[in-house]
């Protein structure tokens, strides 16, 4: 039996890390992830984990040390946010392409400039093509649950890929919620022991990691990598089901809310899904057939499942907490448009860029999105394909006190 505790998202993630008890953690502090490394340092200092903690001098070295440690043959974790993830960019790719099952909580924060410590998804969205599995968490409970499941998913023999577990900076990371923490033994049993493949430390069977790989083989290796992340979809589903059987909270690739009979639907990741659920209830109370889709897994992108759950809607509004500057729209919007097109779905889709740099997203704003969708459904006209929510339009005069 688990126990209910009041924890903020970062403490819940740190709890998961304590229970996972990785062999090596290499990490560097950055707001809003910092309290994860601080809490974990206390676990190390108090002997509550067996982990060797490498207090690196940068995120680039954090990921580099994780790669060395993982290739050596053991369970490895790190955690970061924003500029930290951007700083480790080069080796984020190396970790995935070397097929190392590293798990990394990413507490989402806006990228500079201007510097900003609050939540948006531009950090992890920028890494969406790096080859990592990406799971987004709505709240502290999901951050905890996803971190535990990530270990299993990453280490599956048919997958062997690193996993990023996202949670919203401050909104989730620093807000105290009621979280069910499972027993240490149960978590240990769920993740099982680490099974090394080709460990460097097996000195009697030497292996070469990271050779120069040219046009004669590089493409086959990339193909294998592409196939592995495709197989990860099944792994995410299976591990989510198993987690449900074990702990009573099942997970899938995505989660619908009042979606089956909905006429119009909003798609949104992470904590904003919680706000949107309230708006759906409100609108339903007023007889409006509103629904919500919250993708949990962004990489691999569950296009078939998303198409299946949205294909009969009149209009879909996608909410993107990051922009893809110069592209058609935000990353989530583009993926959904592409999936619809590929599956011959003609449902209308519009995009809403929201919440950049921690800008509050209110129920009123989400309701305004639903109103837009209803209007489009009625008129068949899309006025603007990409909209910005809660932004002051036009040139702004900044007034400061004299």
């Amino acid at each position, binding site marked *: 039996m688990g126990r209910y505790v009041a924890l903020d998202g970062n403490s819940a993630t740190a709890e998961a890390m304590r229970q996972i008890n990785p*062999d*090596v953690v*290499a990490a560097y502090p950055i707001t809003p992830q910092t309290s994860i490394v601080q809490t974990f340092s206390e676990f190390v200092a108090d002997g509550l984990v*067996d*982990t*060797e903690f*490498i*207090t*690196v*001098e*940068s995120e*680039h*070295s954090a990921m*580099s*040390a*994780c*790669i*060395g*440690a*993982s*290739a*050596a*043959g*053991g369970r*490895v974790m790190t955690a970061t946010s924003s500029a930290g993830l951007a700083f480790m960019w*080069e*080796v984020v790719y*190396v970790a995935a392409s070397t097929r190392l099952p590293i798990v990394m909580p990413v507490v989402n924060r806006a990228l500079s400039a201007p510097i900003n410590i609050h939540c948006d998804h531009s950090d992890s969205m920028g890494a969406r093509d790096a080859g990592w599995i990406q799971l987004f968490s709505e709240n502290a409970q999901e951050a905890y649950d996803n971190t535990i499941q990530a270990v299993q998913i990453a280490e599956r023999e048919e997958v062997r890929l690193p996993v990023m577990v996202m949670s919203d900076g401050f909104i989730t990371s620093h807000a105290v919620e009621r979280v069910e923490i499972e027993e240490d033994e149960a978590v240990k049993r769920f993740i099982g022991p680490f099974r090394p493949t080709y460990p*460097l*430390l*097996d*000195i009697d069977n*030497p*292996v*070469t*990691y*990271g*050779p*120069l*790989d*040219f046009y004669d*083989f590089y493409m086959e290796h990339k193909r294998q990598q592409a196939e592995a992340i495709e197989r990860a979809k099944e792994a995410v589903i299976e591990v989510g089901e198993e987690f449900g059987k074990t702990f009573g909270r099942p997970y899938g690739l995505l989660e619908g809310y009042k979606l089956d009979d909905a006429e119009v639907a909003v798609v949104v990741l992470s904590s904003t899904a919680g706000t949107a659920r309230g708006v759906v209830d409100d609108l339903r109370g007023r007889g409006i057939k509103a629904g919500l889709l919250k993708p949990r897994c962004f990489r691999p992108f569950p296009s078939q499942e998303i198409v299946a759950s949205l294909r009969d809607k009149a209009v879909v509004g996608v909410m993107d907490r990051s922009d893809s500057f110069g592209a058609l729209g935000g990353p989530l919007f583009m993926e959904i448009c592409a999936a619809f097109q590929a599956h011959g779905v003609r449902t209308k889709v519009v995009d809403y860029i929201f919440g950049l740099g921690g800008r509050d997203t209110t129920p009123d704003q989400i309701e305004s999105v639903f109103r837009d969708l209803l209007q489009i459904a009625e008129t068949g006209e899309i006025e603007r394909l990409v909209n910005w929510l809660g932004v002051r339009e036009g040139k702004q005069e900044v007034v400061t006190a004299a």
Partner: protein
Amino acid sequence: MATALKLKELSKKEERLAPGHRLCAGCAAPIIVRQVLLAIDEPVIVAAATGCLEVGTTIYPYTAWRIPWIHNAFENAASTLSGIETMYRSLVKQGKMKERDMKFVAFAGDGGTYDIGIQALSGVLERGHRLLYICYDNQAYMNTGIQRSGATPYGAWTTTSPAGKVIPGKPQHRKDLTAIVAAHGIPYVAQASPHRFRDLMQKVRKGVGADGPAFINVLSSCNRGWRHPTDTTLEMSRLAVDTCFWPLYEVEKREWKLNYRPKEKLPIEEFLRPQGRFRHLFQEENKHIIEELQAEVDRRWEALLKRTGEA
């Protein structure tokens, strides 16, 4: 018993870097690697930085390494190796792995060490990982086509410090990286050269035996970049040492010690003249550069003599 550092004994040991790799004929880098690995009797795990050594020894599906080896990226051989060493300690501490006297060695060029990798190196030294970091210093970014680095000597031609009409070669002196590393106060730091292999191998033994990080900076001629015939590699090393351009010394537990003092300190021209990268310095209008280079060699040599108590 450790293998005696005698040619006869050493020649019986299996080479850990196999022949047939694709480094240039006459390149000093594989000579250094073989000397380093022959000096170590224990099992070794190697992390290498991007550079000539890495691309020349592991073109998939081939590898010249008969020991566990990893290349991660250009600037992070030190941090990558620190991850491996830490995993070893973690697994042994937890009883998940039997303790074995294993050595952890990084190989990186001067670019991967003096410049882009200095942060990762410094972090590893400060954290005190038990590993040996070998910089094979060929004084430029050779793999990308001979660009200047923080290790390139004053006045030297490279493709990004060309011998131009207005700027005749590199306008700055080399970084004294060995001294920078020594300033970290780690257990063992040394400078070595492959033409004095016994000295180099002795230093490697001290390095892997140290209780903490060890660093050895080894001068590594690159005939492509230095512009000298392929059969004069070790002659270039000798001249670098006998001109006191590349002194052989060690810093053991913060004690500075000179390992070799040439009978006659040769003028720097002796080292410069055989190398095409310095050819332009012998034109009349550039002679002052040689003088300045000599003055800098003298300044550093005098300072070293003082530090080692030889002055």
